[in-house]
């Protein structure tokens, strides 16, 4: 045990001596969360809507109020004619415009049909689509309510319009998607990359030989290398969780304990991967390359952080199944946002646990045979 503590202390010293590494490890999660949160955002938030139409009309007034009262929308001004829309988009004073047809109220009352146009700024197609979709929802819900009110009057047929409502994330907040993604990415980077590099570094300098020739068992040497990164990733996990909850306002609807457990399983998977990479890499550069090209990039692309796995060709979907981060991210989404328990995340949890056990067994075995 004494031998083990001595090597763990040593590993911690290595990490804290290397100011640059520790800085990267501690600051990277914060920067990534903030970057993704504020710079890379396709969500509906503080959308400025310009309205065009007869504001004296009570039906129009009603809809405009509804838009203005919405949490994510605000009416930025009224236009006297639709031709002014181009101007407000160019001057960037509105993100979308709503144009009400002539005699909107009069047409609506007898037939339930009246013309309204929603115009989005297509120069940013993703955001425009998100905003127009959301606006449509807001206006249609008004329409449905109007129809319900009319329904009692007989003869008039209510026209059916589907109302799209997104559960768990009505405003399509992108933070709901990227927080689990960044969590997966950071934990994997810290655990896999840093562990593999730290083992390979000792291989390069020859000091690994010194440890191996000492009475400390190889398994303990490996474990003593993993523990500091386990601690480091726990700190990172807490940082991301706090930031995303209090700054990004991502809810934690499910059990925090379960979330931590899932993270632990994922961290073990990543550590085992790191060990495996350290066995096959002759030097630090190779280890970094394998981690970067072979792990980080596929994780970014195939774990569903950026592209939804469901819309990939089938072959790529199979490939995405072998990426541990994908399963972890699904679990995090289920627990944090849907608030489900262990039962509904059981499948993903099992897959992740099996991956962890398999990788750990393989990596320890190959580490041992490498020594012979």
């Amino acid at each position, binding site marked *: 045990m*004494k*031998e083990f503590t*001595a090597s763990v202390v040593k590993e911690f010293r*290595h990490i804290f001596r290397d100011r640059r590494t520790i800085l990267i490890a501690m600051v990277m999660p914060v920067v990534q969360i903030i970057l993704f949160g504020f710079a890379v955002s396709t969500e509906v938030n503080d959308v400025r809507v310009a309205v065009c139409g007869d504001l004296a009309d009570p039906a129009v007034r009603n809809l405009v109020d509804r838009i203005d009262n919405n949490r994510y929308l605000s009416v930025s001004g009224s236009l006297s004619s639709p031709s002014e829309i181009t101007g407000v988009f160019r001057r960037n004073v509105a993100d979308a415009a709503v144009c009400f047809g002539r005699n909107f109220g009069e047409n609506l009352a007898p037939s339930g049909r009246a013309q309204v146009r929603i115009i989005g700024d297509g120069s940013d197609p993703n955001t425009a689509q998100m905003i127009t979709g959301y606006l449509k929802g807001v206006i249609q819900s008004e329409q449905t309510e109007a129809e319900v009110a009319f329904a009692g009057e007989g003869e008039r047929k209510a026209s059916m319009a589907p109302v799209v409502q997104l559960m768990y994330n009505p405003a399509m907040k992108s933070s709901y998607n990227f927080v689990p993604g960044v969590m997966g990415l950071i934990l994997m980077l810290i655990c896999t990359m840093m562990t593999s590099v730290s083992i390979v570094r000792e291989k390069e300098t020859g000091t690994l*030989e010194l440890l191996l020739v*000492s009475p400390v068992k190889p398994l303990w040497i490996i474990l003593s290398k993993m523990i500091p990164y386990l601690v480091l990733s726990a700190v990172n996990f807490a940082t991301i969780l706090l930031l995303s909850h209090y700054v990004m306002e991502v809810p934690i609807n499910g059990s925090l304990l379960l979330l931590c457990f899932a993270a632990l399983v994922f961290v073990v998977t990543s550590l085992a991967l790191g060990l495996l990479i350290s066995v096959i890499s002759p030097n630090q550069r190779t280890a970094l390359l394998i981690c970067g090209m072979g792990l980080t990039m596929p994780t970014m692309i195939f774990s569903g952080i950026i592209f939804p796995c469901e819309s990939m060709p089938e072959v790529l979907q199979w490939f995405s199944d072998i990426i541990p981060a994908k399963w972890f991210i699904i679990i995090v989404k289920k627990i944090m946002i849907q608030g489900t328990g262990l039962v509904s995340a059981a499948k993903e949890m099992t897959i992740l646990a099996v991956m962890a056990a398999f990788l750990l067994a393989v990596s320890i075995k190959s580490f041992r045979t490498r020594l012979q």
Partner: protein
Amino acid sequence: MDRNAVEIRNLTKKFGDFTAVDNISFNVRKGEIFGFLGANGAGKTTAMRILCGLSLPTAGEGTVAGYDINTQQEKIKRHIGYMSQKFSLYPDLTVRENIRLFGGIYGLRDRQIREKTDALLGMLEMQSEKDRFAGSLPLGWKQKLAFSIAMIHDPEIIFLDEPTGGVDPETRRRFWEMIYDASEKGTTVFVTTHYMDEAEYCDRVSVMVDGRIAALDSPERLKSEYGADNMDEVFRIIVR
């Protein structure tokens, strides 16, 4: 205690079709300085790894410090010291932290480590350098420190794998004084080297060629046997 420090019988190590160590047998007497010579790729390193308990032989048997090389690797590791040709300290740890670390992994108690640290720093006259990073020390000091640290648990045998690579003759001479000191105190020294003048300092030397031991005797006898003036000539005649 009249047993040999190292006894090796018919040791063979194969990697696939390649035979790195081919049926070698030799003894190292207690307290002697045993030079283990050979060209690169002659099988020195492989043989030494087996003796250090890092690798298992394909065939053959033997003991190191009285423990079986096939079955008691953990015990062997506890009773030997090892210093490699590469720098054997952690450059990003201070002198004192390096001593602590190796004291720790060789299972010394805290009090023993403290005593050893003081004694060692005193002996090397490095008291004022104890909080310096090992990486910033001059090469000569690093080697002395590495040697002392390899001896921290008072091993019966110390394995030195080309310990003096890349240092000037004066530093090498002082390093050999430390080796003699250790030998006088009863530690068996097993050393590989490229420098033939160093071979002269050994009590006995063995020369490996293509996985076999081509010659094994004291430097004087080898020189007279091969009719050479120095070990360099001896080595060249054997290897040729």
